[in-house]
């Protein structure tokens, strides 16, 4: 049976996230974004600073309010749920944050940190919970002796694994991770990426992770969503996006990465600055830096379109660009 897989696990529809400065204008961090996360799939949100990818992840987690749009989890809108329903959803959607030193409560031992989700969601009982905590550590390849330690007594890599264990311990269907690899050295990153792949294969849990590091994305994600200044410019299967990026920004992003091979051409410079979120430019948000911009780009905001030619099993390749206006 081919054809697109059944309804996605999580579906973001037309989400807009705004932040109001105290006594000032409002800042649109995410504008009208739609994307799908299939069950068991790995989706990466990429973009540079101010692109809105982190705000989107936080809105999905319910940490920041949305100004418009829906976040459908198994068909139900998380944003419209009442407290008890939301609590049930929380168990299924867990998080890993960027800085493990800041995301683990400094005054609590690893065991207490791991027990917290179990207690909160009413999983197991006193006897079984301690065992589950030890198992959770084993799953991220850490020794049970670390249960009695405090976060500052662990290395960066260990801390991040504990954060991952905490996210997995309640048996979620989706883990949302905000730059989980950024604080680690390259060799630790490689190991953690490998671990995530194994966990994903074993548990079938879906991942949504935010990253500015395209190398990691390439290794881990099935599909990629490229953000710039609060808008989703391009999304699709990772392989396709890397091999044949459709949006000029994606192309510029890929061309700017210095590959560790002096034989290859040097990274290309993208001139100009990202527009300030308080004063978005008219037309396409990228037009002032786009090497292929034409005069329509300065006038009208392009619509998101699906590119033809992607096979059925692959996610759609969508672009928001006037170059693809057919």
């Amino acid at each position: 049976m081919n054809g697109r897989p059944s309804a996605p696990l999580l579906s973001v529809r037309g989400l807009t996230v705004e932040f109001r400065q105290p006594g000032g204008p409002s800042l649109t961090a995410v504008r009208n974004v739609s994307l799908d996360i299939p069950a068991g799939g790995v989706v990466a949100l990429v973009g540079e600073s101010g692109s809105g990818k982190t705000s989107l992840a936080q809105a999905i987690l319910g940490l920041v309010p949305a100004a418009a749009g829906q976040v459908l989890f198994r068909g139900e809108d998380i944003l419209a749920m009442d407290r008890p329903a939301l609590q049930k959803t929380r168990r299924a959607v867990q998080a890993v944050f960027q800085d493990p030193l800041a995301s683990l409560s400094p005054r609590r031992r690893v065991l207490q940190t791991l027990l917290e989700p179990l207690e909160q969601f009413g999983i197991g009982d006193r006897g079984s919970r301690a065992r589950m905590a030890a198992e959770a550590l084993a799953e991220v390849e850490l020794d049970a002796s670390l249960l009695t330690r405090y976060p500052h007594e662990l290395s960066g890599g260990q801390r991040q694994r504990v954060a991952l264990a905490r996210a997995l311990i309640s048996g979620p269907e989706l883990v949302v991770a905000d730059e989980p690899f950024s604080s680690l050295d390259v060799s630790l990153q490689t190991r953690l990426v490998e671990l995530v792949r194994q966990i994903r294969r074993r548990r079938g849990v879906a991942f949504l992770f935010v990253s500015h590091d395209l190398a990691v994305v390439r290794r881990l994600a099935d599909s990629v969503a490229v953000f710039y200044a609060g808008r989703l410019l391009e999304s699709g299967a990772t392989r396709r996006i890397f091999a044949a990026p459709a949006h000029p920004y994606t192309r510029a992003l890929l061309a700017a990465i210095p590959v560790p091979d002096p034989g290859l051409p040097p990274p290309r410079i993208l001139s100009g600055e990202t527009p300030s979120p308080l004063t978005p430019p008219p037309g396409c948000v990228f037009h002032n830096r786009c090497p292929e911009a034409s005069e329509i780009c300065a006038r009208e905001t392009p619509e998101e379109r699906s590119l033809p030619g992607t096979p059925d099993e692959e996610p759609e390749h969508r672009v928001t660009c006037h170059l693809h206006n057919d």
Partner: protein
Amino acid sequence: MNGRVETWSRLKGDPAGVAGLLIVGVFLLLAAGVWAGVLGQGWADASGGRWESPGAEHWFGTNVLGQDIFERSVYSVRTAFEIGLVVAVLSTLLGAALGALSGWYARTWVDGTVMWLKGVLDAIPFYLFVAAVAYALQGRPWAMHLAMVATFWTTTGRLVRAEVLKLRGQDFVRAARTVGLSDARILLRHVLPNTSHILLVQGTLALVAAIKTEVILSFLGLGVQDGVSWGLMLAESTQEVPAGHFANFAAASGMLFALLMGFNLLADALQDAMDPRQASL
């Protein structure tokens, strides 16, 4: 922020801190002795003649009523600690609670109310406030405690509020929210424990301030009613010193100075020992 073990080892290595700790420790033992009924029990007995010089029977001599100054000095240690501890604990708890609430709900009516309250209390001249409270409570012994707690909490509250504002944006708080913890639980379990370094130091400072304030209040007659304190002794000594009898004054002010010095040394050393920036690079 340093853990308990690290803080203790750093404190041990700091000579000023060790000195403070020793001084405070000695006074604490004296206070315990009084509480246990072992020391200072004869503070009210007019067991000697008027203004006797220090001697074998009365180590510090006697006051105008023939009471043993040494006994009174020692009993006053208990008074000082009692006032200090009650005020320190209550004002710190109150400051922590109100500070945490106003920091967590910053820029809402909760914050507004607490800040308004702080402003009002800070604006009232302290001794007028105490006099008003003492009068209203018709000289009940805890009038002084109440007045001090009601005004001392504001400093702690302000500091805790600032710290909670900072902690609120940290990822571990976000992580707790993704697990669905209620605000109250997050505050109690995750946020407040991370303000403990503030609370500890502020508590120590409140203790010192309470002791000093009691001295002044007792001197003014608004303080201790049923017992003796250094303040009362100092008040007595205003009559005695012009007559050439210094024992009361010397004992009270000497012990007061020693205890406050000890606490100051300890509080400074404690603050340094808890500050992770001191040794990190």
